[in-house]
């Protein structure tokens, strides 16, 4: 599966943006240390009314949806055999590697009894009805699969004598030969846990507004995760293209636009159709907090849909805007259903504290730093056009 050549981007790793990101990371590190020394209450505004805060919702629920680029592209390239999109595959995979790995890191910060985290893997503690157990195990497995899928990038970079000495060339051949198994597992696992992230909310019942609470939550989460996966690939490719003057992928994205438009249509039809079926459409136009959030979400999904079916889909600028709107819509959907449309009652309210947000931001900064480091030093980006110096 290396028909196209990937090349390290090269260039300095420690640049000004890299240092700025590192600065934010240091601030986050300070608050993370405080969290472990003095407890979660010292840095976060989470409470027993809102026991799930930005660490889970932004870094895990939204973070892994941003990490779905690898999942979405693998589905298209390897499962539906659309080879034209292959140049986008490895950068998307790398986004997934970090999106998921750092979501795992955020979970370790968030777990109240982290020293017991290993219990998740012990069969005698397993509680098979738990959606969270399914999500946890599935995400752990997927992180492993993502790194394995990305291994060829490391192996290609290693000097061949080194590989020969340690038998790594055999590993490379093995990975290449059976990559299709990894790819299949790597599509199955996110299908399971991204839908389960919706199923998690089925327990919320009357605590969650009926605009979000539906038995279709798992499917809505799955479709929107896929759409966000394609959105993030568009966003990444455009940013990398502009920042490092690599060849534009705009024509590829114009083709991809149809796929994304299909997903968005399906999502909106299901969301609105379900509401109409339950005769809850009135809630959407109630003009209150929940109703307006719902309408904003719909607008953020409709806008990219219009762009992607119009002739504007060939313009890189419009593609970029569509991707941003799509990602904002998907993120807001997750934020609303996990936090903003949740009413625990008893006068509970929640808004994240500054230190709490700094930890969330720090995790995202680390993600971007690692992404930059990897595309500069490892063969990730499609380098066919700049092969000759």
């Amino acid at each position: 599966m290396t028909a196209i050549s990937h090349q390290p981007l090269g260039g300095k790793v420690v640049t000004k943006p890299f240092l700025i990101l590192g600065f934010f990371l240091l601030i986050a590190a300070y608050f993370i240390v405080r969290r472990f020394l003095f407890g979660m209450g010292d840095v976060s505004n989470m409470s027993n009314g809102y026991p799930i805060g930005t660490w889970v919702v932004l870094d895990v629920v939204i973070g892994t949806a941003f990490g779905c680029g690898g999942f979405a592209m693998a589905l298209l390239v390897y499962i539906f055999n659309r080879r034209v999109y292959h140049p986008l595959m490895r950068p998307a995979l790398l986004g997934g590697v970090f999106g998921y790995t750092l979501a795992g890191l955020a979970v370790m910060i968030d777990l109240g009894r982290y020293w017991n985290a290993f219990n998740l893997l012990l069969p005698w503690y397993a509680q098979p009805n738990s959606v969270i157990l399914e999500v946890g195990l599935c995400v752990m497995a997927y992180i492993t699969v993502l790194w394995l899928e990305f291994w060829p990038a490391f192996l290609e970079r290693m000097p061949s004598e080194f590989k020969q000495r340690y038998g790594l060339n055999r590993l490379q051949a093995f990975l290449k030969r059976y990559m299709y198994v990894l790819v299949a597992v790597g599509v199955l696992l996110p299908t399971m846990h991204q839908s389960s992230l919706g199923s998690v909310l089925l327990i919320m019942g009357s605590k969650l507004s009926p605009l979000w609470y539906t038995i279709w939550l798992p499917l809505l989460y799955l479709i929107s995760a896929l759409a966000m996966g394609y959105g993030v690939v568009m966003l990444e490719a455009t940013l990398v293209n502009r920042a490092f003057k690599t060849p534009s992928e705009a024509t590829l994205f114009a083709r991809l636009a149809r796929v994304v438009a299909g997903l968005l249509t399906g999502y909106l039809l299901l969301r609105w159709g379900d509401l109409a079926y339950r005769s809850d459409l009135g809630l959407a136009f109630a003009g209150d907090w929940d109703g307006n959030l719902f309408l904003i979400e719909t607008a953020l999904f409709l806008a990219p849909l219009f762009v992607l079916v119009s002739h504007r889909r060939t313009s890189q600028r419009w593609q970029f805007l569509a991707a941003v709107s799509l990602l904002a819509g998907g993120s807001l959907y997750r934020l609303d259903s996990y936090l903003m449309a949740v009413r625990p009652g008893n006068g509970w309210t929640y808004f994240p504290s500054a230190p709490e947000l700094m930890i969330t931001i720090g995790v995202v900064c680390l993600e971007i730093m690692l992404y930059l480091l990897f595309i500069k030093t490892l063969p990730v980006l499609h380098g066919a056009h700049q092969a000759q110096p």
Partner: protein
Amino acid sequence: MAINRRQFLRGAIGAVTTTAAVAAPVAGAAPFDRREPKTLPPKAVGMLYDSTQCIGCKACVAACKEANGMPVEQPQRLANWNEGTWDTAEDISGKTLNVIRVYQNGAMTRKDREIDGYAFVKRHCLHCVDPSCISVCPVSAMQKDPVTGIVTHNPDACIGCRYCVYGCPFNVPQYQFDEPLGRIAKCQFCNHLQKQGKIPACCDVCPTGASLFGLVEDLQKEADQRMTLKPGDLYEFPRGKLGGDRPGQVAPVGEYQPHIYGETESGGTQVRYLTGVPHEKLGLPKLPDHSFAAVSEGMQHTLYKGMIAPLALLGGLVVLARRSAKSDEKREKDEERPS
């Protein structure tokens, strides 16, 4: 990169199979069934809390702290007022498993009246028949006793993910956010005392019998009977344990709301509330007569029944990915040949 017709057809067939594998369980889930409701354990123990008999003395709160070794709680804003000496818990928390709250309205001239009245309500675990906390817990830290039905928590299993806090319809489990090594605090109905043949501390100390311990079946009968009495008539309210040897307390019967709270809520609980003020005003949420755990588990059992759907999907994906890899290899060879 041209795909010939045959490849395309094979691809299309694979794609349709995979789509069907995805769509089938989803379509099946549309008229999907909730998991069968759970039933009350054979010797379920519980509590009948009669808000009209509660005098708000909070002896139960103090006794609970002592019996469970919980610390005194002083919210910051009340610290000056009470000079830091009294326990002034306002709600259940990581330090308080049981609390008496007060409802206040207008002039507060009469007890157990919604308008211009006041009322007391007790907050603690209701020991659901079909508990959400058990359904969400990934590591079986929450357990329901198969005989007594008491919902207990095992901190050695708990990973602190707090989904029990998030999912409980009554907001009962409480995580200790102010502790570096915090744990989940919840009422375990003085399980440790019951093992010694004693009754829960809150029911033991209640001077009026507002908190009454007993078998859920008996408590239900007692509650049903109180509902038939005429408000204002004198009645001997049992104290401590229903059917125990303690003398009762003779007091006027309250003017009860027409529904016994806790009987059907969230698939039924092991606690019964009789109140004079509407339940929702007292922070007892309106809930359907099924547990949301049955919805969530119904969905999981539909999608993951015998892992058939995921395995079928995996099979389809492996076939498609392999085909795609083979066509890739072939293309590579074709490209190499001329060079």
